[in-house]
């Protein structure tokens, strides 16, 4: 081989081609984004912090009648799932009783099959569907439904609850027309053992002809949420704003980096970034907030936090993990948080369709 040919061959460089669209849709940990996500619809109302339509400041007008105490939603870790519209789901008491009977029978058949052999993978004995009042706030919302699964107990009342699930839609705005038979309850919050959860979800999919998938929050969504809610003071001095980053697989030994900020200091930072007058808040403010925190971290540790994947955020009112785990800490924030999540789920559907 002549030297001229060798010279040519050495300077051929291989490039790796990837499509921007793919990288936007699949957040696989290559989270060093130079272009931030911009939603293609009008800013939804859940992003308003103050003013007439803000859910955080005004307590929503609840329908008359007794409401469930929303306290049982707080201080529990829920798994969030997204649900496509349910076919033929009725809210009437008779229909709910019918569904309860169906599911109880199915559960009992499952447990007779011998799957739930040891105590831990108990499938359960009875299911109860009931209306969960107090969550549906806008006129477009169907009423939320709660599903409780109880294990075998000595008496009907004292049986242990092994799974709790809530199907809801909070504060959704009117978008497209749905067919007559379809009910839109896009958010499913579940707390229960893995086996029971799996079974309940497959039953719901079969019964109501819907598709239920785990809801994941990409780092961009988490950044929005932490910025929106970091500036809320609950008056409790011990609350903190937390950002948990996980590291790419190539870095062995170090598994996560946690940045925890005092709530008052986080509020100071947010106030300095946010325009006091305006009701909405903009992508620029969110970007500035997170970039300021990253710069503060970089100054001390010389590590680029933007290159790491944000996997869990904590604010004074709620803790959210990217794999779909949610823990609401204060009752007042329930509507705001669930409304935002309802919108995120509906955005997902719009984008996918």
């Amino acid at each position, binding site marked *: 081989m002549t030297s001229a040919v060798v010279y040519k061959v050495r300077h051929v460089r291989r490039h790796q081609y990837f499509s921007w669209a793919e990288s936007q849709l699949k957040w696989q940990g290559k989270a060093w984004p130079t272009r931030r996500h911009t939603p293609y619809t009008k800013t939804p109302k859940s992003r308003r912090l103050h003013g007439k339509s803000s859910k955080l400041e005004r307590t929503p007008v609840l329908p008359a009648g007794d409401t469930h105490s929303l306290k049982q939603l707080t201080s529990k870790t829920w798994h969030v799932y997204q649900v496509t519209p349910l076919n033929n789901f009725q809210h009437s008491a008779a229909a709910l009783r019918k569904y309860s009977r169906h599911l109880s029978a199915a559960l009992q058949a499952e447990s007779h099959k011998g799957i739930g052999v040891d105590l831990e993978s108990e499938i359960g004995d009875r299911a109860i569907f009931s209306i969960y009042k107090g969550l549906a706030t806008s006129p477009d919302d169907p009423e939320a439904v709660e599903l409780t699964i109880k294990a075998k107990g000595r008496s009907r009342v004292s049986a242990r609850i092994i799974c709790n699930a809530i199907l809801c839609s909070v504060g959704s705005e009117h978008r497209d027309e749905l067919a007559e038979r379809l009910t839109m309850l896009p958010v499913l919050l579940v707390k229960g053992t893995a086996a029971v959860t799996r079974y309940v979800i497959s039953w719901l999919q079969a019964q109501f002809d819907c598709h239920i998938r785990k809801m994941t929050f990409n780092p961009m969504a988490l950044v929005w949420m932490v910025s929106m809610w970091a500036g809320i003071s609950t008056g409790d001095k011990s609350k903190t704003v937390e950002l948990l980053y996980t*590291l790419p697989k190539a870095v062995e030994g170090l*598994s996560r980096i946690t*940045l925890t900020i005092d709530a008052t200091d986080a509020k100071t930072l947010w106030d300095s970034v946010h325009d006091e007058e305006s009701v909405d808040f903009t992508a620029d403010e969110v970007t500035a907030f997170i970039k300021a925190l990253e710069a503060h971290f970089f100054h001390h540790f010389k590590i680029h936090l933007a290159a790491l994947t944000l996997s869990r955020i904590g604010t004074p009112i709620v803790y959210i993990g990217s794999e779909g785990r949610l823990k609401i800490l204060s009752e007042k924030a329930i509507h705001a948080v669930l409304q935002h999540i309802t919108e995120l789920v509906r955005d997902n559907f719009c984008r996918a369709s």
Partner: protein
Amino acid sequence: MINTNVEIRLRKVLGRFKRDEFVKHLREWGSIPSGCLKEVETVVAEKSTRKALVERIVQLSNIKHLTTLDVAQLDLIYHQNHPNNRKWSVFQLTKQPEQNEKHVVTSPDAFRERLGKQLSFYFKNDLCLRTRGDAWWLRLGIQEGSQAQRLSPGNVVYMVHHPHSQYIIMSSIKVSHKDFVMQALLNSLHCSEIREIQLTGRDLDSLAALALHSNSQGWFSQFRLGQVDSNPLSKGPSRKRKAPSDVPDTDVVFENQKDKDHREQQILHAFGSNRQPKLQKIEYKLETRFRGFEFAPAMSLHKEPFHCRVKFEGSSVLEGIKELGRAGLTALPLPHHLANVHSLAKNHFVLADKKRTRPEQK
């Protein structure tokens, strides 16, 4: 009955052993006659269940003559071989210079006698000591309170001391017992002060290495481990043909090879080429002014400290930080409090602004 108590404890300890460790540890223990040991070997080889094995061993050992101290010895043997299940914290002892010549701890037995006597002023205890390598391992079982409390693991403290060093590594102690144990240690080791340094973790050998060899970590570990050639001319040029490089595709050319080499050199200089000691967590408390005002201009007016905490967690955080540098996720050189953790013998840090003292106006 005393014997049932001993039996319960013996079963508990034996239940933790792994199948292939039985024979080795029982031989070390020495409370089982050697004839019976052969029988134990055959039972182990039989692949019976562990429960049956434990039963057999309990039968073979002379339950009548065993005391809690013997069982404690067996427990200590187990923990010597599995030190990485506990949370350890490191304490530093300071001696007054006058005490140095007069009182020196001579032998492990003398130390144990003294410590046992000191501790017996405060509570009933059983104390056993075993050497392992050049470290003295102690197991202190505090026998206070009800029967259930005595058997609980919260009343057991494990201590590891390297003789003539000023460090002692202890597992977690109950707050009520802590002062007494500290005082007893001070008296038996002839020291004036014992202080908890901010070094905690799970891997005992790493903690010992970080505390004892804090002057020779990172780049300097090569000298301690004897990896530097004594005679630079001793290695002649190798006549062997070099193996082909494992990048078969020579069309791939890295554009930033110089940067990569520079980076590699900086990391080598900071961390050395040996394995880093394992730390599970490094915590920083930041009390500095906010430094991100490039993006939040209004914050430059705030002079108060911006309180936050940073935690690095993982199986071996120092290795991870080294890999971070290699992966390009950091800007090198790393700051002193991150790159030199191996030499600082600490894993909890507080970062604060330097206080500027105004020069006096004349």
